[in-house]
């Protein structure tokens, strides 16, 4: 296909194939968003109106009442804070610990390196349910009087932080060790010859160079840990202590007679991850593919 001379390369002239493609993509994208738009529409309509006119009807008025009601009636702030208390330390600790292991296995030639890396990578691929039964018993067994509200590791934010860190450090170690391995050898070797300690090597030379990978992983981890449902469902028993996603489960049981309110609650729960995604899209996507491109 010959393009008009001088036309910018990006702007291909209108071709039937392109029109067809765009039509297809627009229709599919709208179909893809339909469940979310449906939830949004339901959430913006008063229950009285929909129960009278049915859900497929022209809305008389659209309000944010359901959102404010869901937010205040179910004490969502409290659950958001719970999530924050779990997610922030979990993300930071995971990055710190897995970068240390990655540093160890990628910058030195110890015999255990490969086994260590295999151990972490394989651990992350296991389904969570494989380990939950003994973990649950273990958490009930560990007494932490005065440290956690429940007096045990069970039903505590600390317990969730620990399992998130232990589990997620597998993926992060794998990604970070690949990343660190691509840094030039001379970099650390020269510093070692000059007498720098390994901690300095790690903290002042290697870690700052890993910033892009760490940012990508931090985005990914925040979303994963925020979205966690399984660990919280099994390892937290008190409704008060639940993070937002599992608290939503309780909320929907409580308000199942008003689907519009549940829709509002579900959408509110999704907002933080959507914000993180829209703001840090590039980091998120590169994080997902950091692990996948190798392989």
């Amino acid at each position, binding site marked *: 296909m010959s393009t008009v001379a001088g036309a910018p390369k990006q702007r291909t002239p209108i071709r039937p194939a392109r029109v067809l493609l765009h039509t297809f993509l627009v229709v599919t*994208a709208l179909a893809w968003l339909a469940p979310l738009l449906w939830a949004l529409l339901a959430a913006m309509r008063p229950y009285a109106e929909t129960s009278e006119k049915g859900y497929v009807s022209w809305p008389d008025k659209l309000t944010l009442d359901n959102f404010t009601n869901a937010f205040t009636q179910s004490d969502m702030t409290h659950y958001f804070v719970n999530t924050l208390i779990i997610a922030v330390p979990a993300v930071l600790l995971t990055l710190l610990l897995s970068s240390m292991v990655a540093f160890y*296995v990628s*910058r030195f030639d110890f015999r255990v390196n490969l086994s*260590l890396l295999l151990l972490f990578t394989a651990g992350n691929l296991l389904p969570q349910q494989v380990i939950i039964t*003994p973990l649950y*018993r273990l958490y009930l067994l560990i007494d932490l009087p005065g440290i956690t509200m429940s007096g045990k590791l069970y039903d505590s934010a600390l317990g969730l932080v620990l399992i998130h860190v232990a589990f997620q450090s597998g993926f992060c170690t794998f990604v970070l060790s690949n990343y660190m391995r691509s840094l030039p050898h001379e970099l650390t070797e020269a510093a070692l010859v000059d007498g720098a300690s390994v901690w300095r090597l790690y903290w002042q030379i290697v870690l700052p160079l890993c910033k892009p990978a760490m940012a990508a992983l931090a985005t990914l981890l925040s979303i994963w840990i925020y979205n966690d449902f399984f660990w919280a469902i099994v390892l937290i028993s008190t409704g008060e202590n639940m993070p937002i996603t599992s608290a939503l489960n309780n909320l929907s049981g409580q308000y199942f007679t008003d689907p519009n309110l549940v829709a509002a609650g579900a959408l509110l729960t999704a907002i933080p991850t959507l914000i993180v995604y*829209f703001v840090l899209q590039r980091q998120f996507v590169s994080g997902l593919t950091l692990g996948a491109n190798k392989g």
Partner: protein
Amino acid sequence: MSTDTSTENPEAAAEPSPGAASRKRPTGHRRLLTRRDRITLGLMAGLPTILHIALVWLTALASIALAFTSWNGIGFDSIQWVGLQNFRELFTSNPQFWPAVEHNVVWFVVLILLPTPFGLFLAVQLDKSIRFSRVYQTAFFLPVVMSLAVIGFVWQLVYNPDTGLINSVIGANKPGHYIDWIGDPDLNLWAVLIAASWRHAGYMMILYLAGLKGVDPALREASALDGANEWQTFKNVVFPTLRPTNTVVLVVTIIEALRAFDLVFVFNKGAQGTELLSILVTNNIIGESSRIGYGSAIAVVLLVISLAVIIPYLIATFRKERRA
């Protein structure tokens, strides 16, 4: 890729590096380490490893051990060795076990046959440097960012017999016409799988988009010059180069199928028609009856299936890395 630092003999690693060769001490990093450095390093690797092993691998091993016992969870002295009895009961008399295995398999087959190729198709289309590509990508990718629990609630609104989108649109929301998408044991697995596929396609699209970025444009041009049409180019040139991505996609999809839990738990807690291995394990913990040994036996089945996938994958991955 970079040189491999984990080789067996440090001499070989240091030899080809020109920077190291010029120096007087042709060694790996190891020989430069002081005693203090070694301790620091030991702690740096040791502490995370202990945490990981204690919570992930020791519990996995404990699952195996407990699978051969009967235990109600109260006091260690009530643990009884029962040999293979849990497995015998599981395989022969548990009415939920084989359906659960079957559903996990169906889950995988559906994900790999429908949303995965569709995600690839979307990726190929969006890779054509078209306008608004970002907007389309975001639309397809949005479900991947959301919690599966939230997705479960959103799709319940779609499937609700009375007020849901589908029944409202097809006019099945009147008494006598109800289609109970989540309650009907013949329909509910498929209903859940549509929601799961909705999310999976976006995930696969992103993985394939990243893979397609790595395809050398020269290959495509050469193929076009040879007179191949779009489909022939894709089939003979692009798809074969996506091999590494395909491996990852396959492994990710199997693991997702084995891990499937949240959606089903939110929909109907794995009752009638949507049983899954993960749900059976969980029911033994948070259900009324605490049967630790029995729950562990199901977990062991899950573990064995997982390892059958994980081990070959890791061997292949790490062998390639060694060669690189």
